[in-house]
């Protein structure tokens, strides 16, 4: 079963690559892609640690709510692990 995750609902200033429209949304890890230098560090020319990157799948209903035209369609976004938190079944 695919790991359910929530994108952290943080809104820091600075060079952030996690799209705002996905913050706070819940999806599943479709696959893990390996570790890559963190662009949040690369952007400032400082030493960039390699961070695990995941492809996360969201439903349109989750992202857009009642506005979703095709609620069952899905959207994949590649998000670094430090922006994700596990969601446990209630």
């Amino acid at each position: 079963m695919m790991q359910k995750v929530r994108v952290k609902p943080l809104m820091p200033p600075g060079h952030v690559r996690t799209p705002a429209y996905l913050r706070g949304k819940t999806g599943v890890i479709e696959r893990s892609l390996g570790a890559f230098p963190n662009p949040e560090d690369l952007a400032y020319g400082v030493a960039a640690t390699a961070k695990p990157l995941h492809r996360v799948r969201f439903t349109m209903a989750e992202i857009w709510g009642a506005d979703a035209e095709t609620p069952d369609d899905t959207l994949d976004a590649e998000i670094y692990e430090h922006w994700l938190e596990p969601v446990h079944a209630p």
Partner: protein
Amino acid sequence: MSTNKTNPGNRLHDSPLTRRLQDSPLTRRWQDSPLTRRWHDMGGDPAGPVPKDQHDFAIWEKRVDALMIIGAAKGYFTVDGLRRVLEDMGEEAFETMAYYERWVASISQNLIEGGAYTTAELAEKMAEVANRGDTYGDAAKGPA
């Protein structure tokens, strides 16, 4: 000021509409704040038609592109640094400057930060180039 609040999609292009939108409440919500998304993080916003017109690049635009590749290859900065400065330039620059004008400003900022040259050296070089004249023709004639 009259604004078309139903179609912010055209903000992606330089147009009279986008210039009017700069002063609208609709646009102000994209301004940077610690509590809201940044102006460039526009995923999910209404969008207009995709412009499909093509054009040839001018020689200076090609040179700017090459400068990015050389600067990155030499290790002065990365594409992430390019994007950081482009985004920090803000929405006004996005609306008023051409694509490669924004690039060359960002590349220069990154090269200064990376130690390729100093602002003083840049200033001297810019004055020297401006002295050559307004056109390539003037420059080819040599010093006045």
